[in-house]
């Protein structure tokens, strides 16, 4: 048999998986950012006076000038939609019964990716003002999901 011929009895593929489980800490700024969401229902950013830039989610340092950021600001819970999309399939490829609206919402000079609800998809537009809807305090865990979704504002 020549070198390049495949042996018909050889198993063609080897099945396996790579086990990766992680436990992430949120970092110095991340911890304070999520604590504010959980305990106070507030969204915070950090402001760099050198670059005049407010980071949301809050960051420990300015990536533009590497200064430490100690200026914490409440950026409110209302922002405008920078861009959005309608998801018709789940991430594993299976179909959804109803499409999900996901948007990038401007807060400070950054923003959050989140779901948009309580609105018909035809009425959503770039530039639209939306407001965060928080879960009841008892249900919050210090997670981005402590915000249930964003809805049209006012």
């Amino acid at each position: 048999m020549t070198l390049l011929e495949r042996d018909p009895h050889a198993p063609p593929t080897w099945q396996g998986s790579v086990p990766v489980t992680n436990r992430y800490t949120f970092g110095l700024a991340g911890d304070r950012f999520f604590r504010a969401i959980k305990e106070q229902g507030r969204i915070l950013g950090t402001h760099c006076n050198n670059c005049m830039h407010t980071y949301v989610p809050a960051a420990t340092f300015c990536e533009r000038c590497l200064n430490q950021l100690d200026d914490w600001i409440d950026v409110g819970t209302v922002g405008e939609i920078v861009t959005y999309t309608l998801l018709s399939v789940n991430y594993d490829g299976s179909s959804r019964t109803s499409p999900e609206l996901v948007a990038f919402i401007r807060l400070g000079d950054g923003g959050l990716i989140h779901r948009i609800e309580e609105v018909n998809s035809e009425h959503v537009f770039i530039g639209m003002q939306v407001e965060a809807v928080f879960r009841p305090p008892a249900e919050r865990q210090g997670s981005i999901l402590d915000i249930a979704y964003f809805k049209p504002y006012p």
Partner: protein
Amino acid sequence: MSKRKVAVVGAGMTRFVRRAQETGKELSWQAVRMALESCEMTMDDIEAVCLGTAPDAFDGVHMKGEYLSDGAGAWRKPYMRSYVGGGTGVFVPIQAWYHIASGLFDVCLVVAEEKMSSYYPHAQAAFLTIFDHTTERPLKPNLLWIFALEMNRYMHTYGISKADIAQVAVKNKRNAADHPCALLGDKNITVEDVLNSEVLAWPVNRLDVSPVTDGAVALVLAAEHVAKRITDKPVWIEGVGWSLDTAHWTNRDLAYPRYVEYAARMAYEMAGIKEPRKEIHIVEPYDPFDYKELHHLEGLLLADRGQAPQLVADGVTSRNGDMPVCPSGGLLGVGNPIAAAGLMKIAELFWQLRGEAGARQVPGHPKRGLAQAWGDLMQVGTVVIMGR
């Protein structure tokens, strides 16, 4: 081939801890900030950034190079991430070296970061992927196997005992007691402590191994004309070398790391070194396990084969000896955040050769040092030689 002279002009590092609250980005930023402050430079002075970090699986973030780029100061700058397993920490400064030696850039930032604690419950399980997926993983191997198998072969080939090897762990952990960032420094540890520690995979005991660690290190490299303006004590990179052996690790001699020798020869030739044992004053070989320091000293041609343990027994490798080895405390004492560990050794040589290593200072005004790292499936050797 004309290469410009390149010097290390600044260095910084975080403490090496078992688990850090900081994210990988924050660790990188802390090290970078310290490195810049140490030579009074800002991000505006930095022209390019080279970052080294080991498998994405540890931090649990895909495309870790991009993820860490903001903490590494790479915003809107030319940026490259390299990864050669444990060899990364000494490879990434080589990458930055040729960025500058080629004439393309004048000032380059080098960063190495690792956050192994993110891998849950224990980072060791991630190393399962290092083995061949079809011919080895079905045996459910773990990383300890490779080291234990190599250590046993080394011991058997030269008739070296565990007690001989344990001396290295004792030396390094005692040295590390003087390092402010160390995780496992211990002024009072003895050979008995090491031999009596829990057997993990004979002949490897718990105290023969360096721990899972989080940490980051950063350096600033500059071309000659810039270096001379910034500091009156630049530390020049005089030689670099790197080499790779076969990934079929069961098909080569485990008792001798010839890939380290090839990398070392490349570096010695570039530095014009003819008698390394006389011309190298400080050695920082990679020591994730205590026997590796001995193994690597032989591969670096600084000891005859099988004779490295004698150098340790004779006190030659202690800080006051003729050829200090791991005055920093090495990985065994300071910690082993895979990529940052190698760069820590380069930072150590930087401080030692400038006389700034405090309690760890090697006496006698050392002029030349060598740092070496090793990794992948025990097959990559990376070497950097630095001098004043």
